[in-house]
């Protein structure tokens, strides 16, 4: 791709990654969450694949797949965390521990340290979606390319 595209990609990649991270992090407070944030961040990586060519990222296929597996395992493990009560019980919410602040009923400015397992699940899903969507774009871009022959 041309210099213009590459320069703009260099500019946009950090922005999209940071914004994706922001959306994931505030999933329990503002519109968004793991899927949306992961998709935003993945769009940045897709831009890199388009601008710099898939070959440059070809070696990262294994990394993406491992990251995706890891996100999936982490998400399922958070589900298993509730197994003392029932599968998927939110044992951290309102417990006073990690993300355990209680929230009063009604409109409020929002507190990051709330909602129990939700933020953790958001992160797990965010990584998973980031890795999964990037892997799909990368696989399509690599198919039929030089390294494939």
């Amino acid at each position, binding site marked *: 791709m041309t210099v213009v595209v590459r320069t703009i990609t260099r500019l946009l990649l950090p922005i999209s990654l940071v914004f994706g991270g922001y959306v994931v992090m505030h*999933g*329990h*407070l*503002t*519109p968004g*969450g793991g899927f949306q944030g992961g998709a935003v961040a993945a769009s940045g990586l897709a831009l890199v694949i388009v601008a710099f060519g898939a070959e440059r990222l070809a070696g990262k296929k294994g990394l993406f*797949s491992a990251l*995706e*597996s890891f*996100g*999936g395992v982490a*998400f*399922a493990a958070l*589900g298993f965390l509730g197994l003392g009560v029932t*599968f*998927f019980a*939110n044992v951290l*919410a*309102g417990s006073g521990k990690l993300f*355990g*602040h*209680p*929230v*009063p*009923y*009604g409109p*409020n400015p*929002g507190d990051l340290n*709330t*909602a*129990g*397992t*939700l933020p953790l*699940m*958001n992160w797990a*899903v965010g990584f*998973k*979606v980031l890795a*999964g969507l990037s*892997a*799909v774009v990368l*696989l*399509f871009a*690599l*198919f039929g390319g030089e390294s*494939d022959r």
Partner: protein
Amino acid sequence: MSQWLAIGAFCLAAGFLIFGAVALRPFGEPTRTEMDDYFNRYSQPEVAANNAVTAIVFDYRGYDTLGEATVLFTAVTGVALILRKVRK
């Protein structure tokens, strides 16, 4: 011949769907909202989340989301399987 058959099937399906949309309750006036009212009311005290949608996605219906994550994982695995290099 098969063209007319396709047009007939299409008209039948479209009529069926639009009839369904008209037969449903009016837009913007849900009749039965016990479950959703519960979510809007208790997502803060029970899950401590300001965002009721996220509370549903990851807590009340978190198991669905696990299935959904599985769907995405399955699709990525499937794409990797289909687009793999084959020595044959």
